[in-house]
């Protein structure tokens, strides 16, 4: 009985997660192509996608590696890209915190932007779901997206050499990033944080060890948080 109900929530999650394939597959494919072009072997590229398992940070790391940035800078900058997942982790913990540790350990690995977004929407819409139903929904949402990320990377390695120069593939990464950034501009705080990030990253581009981006990000983050404080205070008064 409860197995059947859990199953229906699994498929509800699956349907909610499936549209993200349209982003995940081209993005994963692109990572395979770009990483191979940068000189990574197939094994290294596949390990990157399956071990790190976080697209935006993988591209960020790869870009810095191409620029020969020091190891610590590559790691710090790419991890900074992933810091938002601490927030995902915290807000999922409210709903899934009572699951057994081994389940939470697995959920943590698959906690990507897409699975987080659809799951948290579902949990907040239907706060009466049982823990089993919530976990089933999460795994449903993960199923279409996560394996395809790794498979698409493999496909990218495979087709990489066949992509002709005229396709201007160098610019596919910036275009993908911009398309992902644009919908994030939800509030004034987000917009100002993004602007500070852009201006400082350009101004500080000459800093040694590629420290510019990290510095720009730190300041931009504080600006975003501070603007949020001001705007909520203003709205309250």
């Amino acid at each position, binding site marked *: 009985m409860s197995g059947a109900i859990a199953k229906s929530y699994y498929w509800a999650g699956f349907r909610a997660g499936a549209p993200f394939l349209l982003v995940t597959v*081209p993005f994963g494919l692109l990572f395979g192509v770009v990483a191979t072009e*940068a*000189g990574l072997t197939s094994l290294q590229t596949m390990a990157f996608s399956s*071990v790190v398992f*976080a697209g935006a*940070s*993988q591209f*960020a790391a790869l*870009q810095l*590696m191409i620029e020969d940035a020091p*190891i610590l800078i*590559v*790691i710090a900058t790419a*991890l*900074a890209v*992933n810091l*938002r*997942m*601490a927030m*995902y*982790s*915290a807000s999922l*913990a*409210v709903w899934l*915190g009572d699951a057994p*540790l081994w389940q939470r*350990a697995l959920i*943590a*690995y698959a*906690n990507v932007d897409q699975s987080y977004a659809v799951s948290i929407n579902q949990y907040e819409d239907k706060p009466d779901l049982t823990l089993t139903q919530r976990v089933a929904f999460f795994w449903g949402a993960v199923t279409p997206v996560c394996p395809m990320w790794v498979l698409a990377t493999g496909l990218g390695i495979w087709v990489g050499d066949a992509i002709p120069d*005229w396709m*201007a593939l160098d610019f596919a990464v*910036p*275009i993908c990033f*911009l*398309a992902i*950034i*644009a*919908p994030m*501009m939800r509030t004034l705080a*987000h917009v100002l*944080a993004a*602007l*500070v*990030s*852009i201006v400082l990253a*350009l101004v500080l*581009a000459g800093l040694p060890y590629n420290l*510019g*981006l990290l510095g*720009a*990000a*730190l300041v*931009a983050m*504080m*600006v*975003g*948080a501070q603007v*949020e*404080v001001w705007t909520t205070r203003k709205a309250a008064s």
Partner: protein
Amino acid sequence: MSLTYIWTIIAALGIGTYLIRFSFLGLIGGKNLPDWVLRHLRYTAVAVLPGLVAPLVLWPSATDGAIDPPRLTAALVTLGIGILTRNVIAAILCGGVTLFAMIWAMGAY
């Protein structure tokens, strides 16, 4: 790029990213997180990614860092469509079409 360089980065990012994902879910529980921390975490993606992309857009490697009108226009179109429609796929498609159309119009093919 040396082997150690590549594998160290993959391993460190793998472990670090996992620990970030596991953090509150695995160890602490979400309710105890102070407001100001959550407030900063909300802006991490939007603080890092635009700064990462900006130099790639203004100083593309394909032109050895010279400003390139097709790439700059394509970037602005992608961003504009993305903000207006909030649709990632539509933004990527419009940006791509703009890029090819501009390169073609400027006679680079």
